């Protein structure tokens, strides 16, 4: 650290915040970017599933019929109705807790995906699909609640890094369009600045709203201080009736399609996204319908609750106050459900820009500290190796996840978990193997392997599905895989040609004042 100015101290904190959280942030940026296409990835990963679209009311009827047959005495059903993007109905059920307090807690049942037309579980290869990326993005495949805590901690580091980075960067407007290739450290700084500054509104928004999404978990104390129970908080804000007790008298649910139609009519034709049925076999059952957030910025839609047996309208969520509205809009901005196809691709590209920002920042940390001819110190080697493991090897893991989807036999038992294992084995395995190679060779080779694996995904798709894809979604997906392969291949090629260029002796013009000033900024 040179000097004591604000800018120097900000540069120092920016470097350390970015470094310590960087590797996890890179994984969060990559999986979060993929999550913009969560339903599309799931559809690609179940190529044999081609359902017929049916009205929502029909989907609700068939799903309830299946649940009444298979989980009639459960405490709660949660049904996600199909949309234009998600073609299957998703249902979660929660068993009634065992009245004996010593009995072990009933395990949470896994998600069931049903065909909306028939109400039967869909007959397609078992996979986690896009849900895997979405979950990993904020849970990091760690046990609850550690993953969410770690993700939140990294997001806080990121927010700090953004603020300190803006203060550090004194030539924001002068260098707005500046990107120079093949100039060593300056090129890395240019790439880091450009990817950060041009998409700064996006980076700041996505980091802040991401933190706010789980703020109740990170800061539970205001609710604990003001409400007797956390459920009372949800009830007063969203009209949530999850805490309703069963009467003990048996009852039969009225026609579910009617509820969907009634709610949709009350919302002037807006669709229902989710149905929550409380105590479905009880006389005091409740049916809560939630409005979709697809057509507006606020992702937390209104809800209406009906009595399940009589069909009477019991309650509706109160008109949202400013705080609830703000929280809903922040969630909506983070999830990006409001985005139509073009805007969704734009968000995807901005997410990739974020990945580039984190990756170039991590590389810059090492490039800045390299001394020609000097033996790298331990911390330096550690950071270099972790950079390779995160930036170059994670893409290989993701490609392996998608490849495993096509290469594992479709009816293999436990294949969904095997796909996930394939990702982690490929990711960490490649990172471990790269330790055997010198740093530059390791970069080139891991990037090239990642590129090859991504290029193999569409080939495996063509070979295993057997027919050339006619569905636009499959064409776009395979084309995107080729583009990602090309990008990684380009990175490998650039890494490979760099030393040859740097070694070429250059005749330089006398150093100008502007260049001296820039050199100072770089340092």
């Amino acid at each position: 650290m040179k000097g004591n100015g604000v800018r120097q101290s900000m540069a120092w904190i920016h470097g350390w915040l970015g470094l310590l959280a960087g590797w996890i942030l890179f994984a969060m940026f990559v999986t979060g970017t993929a999550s913009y296409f969560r339903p599309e990835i799931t559809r690609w990963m179940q190529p044999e599933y081609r359902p017929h679209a049916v009205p929502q009311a029909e989907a609700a009827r068939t799903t309830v019929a299946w649940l009444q047959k298979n989980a009639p005495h459960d405490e709660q059903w949660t049904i996600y109705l199909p949309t234009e993007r998600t073609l299957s109905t998703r249902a979660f059920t929660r068993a009634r807790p065992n009245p004996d307090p010593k009995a072990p807690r009933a395990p949470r049942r896994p998600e069931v995906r049903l065909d909306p037309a028939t109400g039967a579980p869909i007959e397609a290869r078992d996979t986690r699909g896009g849900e895997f990326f979405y979950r990993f993005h904020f849970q990091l495949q760690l046990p609850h609640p550690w993953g969410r805590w770690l993700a939140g901690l990294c997001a806080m580091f990121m927010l700090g890094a953004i603020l300190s980075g803006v203060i550090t960067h004194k030539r924001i407007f002068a260098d707005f369009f500046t990107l120079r290739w093949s100039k060593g450290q300056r090129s890395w700084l240019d790439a880091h600045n450009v990817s950060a500054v041009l998409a700064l509104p996006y980076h700041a928004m996505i980091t802040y709203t991401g933190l706010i999404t789980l703020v109740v978990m990170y800061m539970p104390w205001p609710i604990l201080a003001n409400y007797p129970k956390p459920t009372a908080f949800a009830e007063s804000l969203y009209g949530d009736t999850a805490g309703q007790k069963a009467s003990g008298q048996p009852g039969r649910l009225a026609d579910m399609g009617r509820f969907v139609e009634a709610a949709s009519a009350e919302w002037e034709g807006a669709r229902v996204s989710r149905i929550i049925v409380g105590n479905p076999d009880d006389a005091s059952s409740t049916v809560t319908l939630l409005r979709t957030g697809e057509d507006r910025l606020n992702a937390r839609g209104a809800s209406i609750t009906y009595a399940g047996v009589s069909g009477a309208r019991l309650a509706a969520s109160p008109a949202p106050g400013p705080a609830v509205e703000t929280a809903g809009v922040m969630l909506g901005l983070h999830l990006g459900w409001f985005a139509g196809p073009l805007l969704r691709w734009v968000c995807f590209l901005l997410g990739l820009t974020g990945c580039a920002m984190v990756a170039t920042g991590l590389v810059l940390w090492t490039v800045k500290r390299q001394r020609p001819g000097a033996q790298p110190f331990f911390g330096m080697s550690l950071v270099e190796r972790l950079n390779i493991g995160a930036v170059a090897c994670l893409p290989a893991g993701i490609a392996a996840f998608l490849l495993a989807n096509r290469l594992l036999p479709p009816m293999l038992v436990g294949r969904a978990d095997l796909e996930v294992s394939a990702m982690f084995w490929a990711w960490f395995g490649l990172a471990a193997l790269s330790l055997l190679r010198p740093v530059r060779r390791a970069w080139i080779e891991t990037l090239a392997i990642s590129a090859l694996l991504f290029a193999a995904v569409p080939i495996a798709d063509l070979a295993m599905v057997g027919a050339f894809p006619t569905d636009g979604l499959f064409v776009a997906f395979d084309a995107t895989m080729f583009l990602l392969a090309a990008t990684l291949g380009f990175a490998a090629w650039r890494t490979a040609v760099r030393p040859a260029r740097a070694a070429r002796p250059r005749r330089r013009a006398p150093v100008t004042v502007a260049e001296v000033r820039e050199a100072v900024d770089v340092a």
Partner: protein
Amino acid sequence: MSLEVALLGYAGFAKLAQGRGRHSRTARPDRARARILGWLLILGSFLAALHRFGPYLAVPAWLALLSVSGVILVLLLSRWPMAATAPWIPMTVIALPLCLL
């Protein structure tokens, strides 16, 4: 489609890059004119976003489209400094009828 917002944003950034003075032998008053036109085009892209998305969604959609057009411009500019800014006229011309669609 909301492509016109990105096209106008690209055109606006291209003019701002031309007005920046580096790598160009443009005279000073020309550069000032390019900068003013650039800001006007960016204002135009905001108005196009307002027209397309309505007041509620316009700001996030505009910022997202503008950011992506800036990233694409800078990538092209780093490789082809002259050719990257050239298509601002056809882009503006294509964007105007798109606003009305």
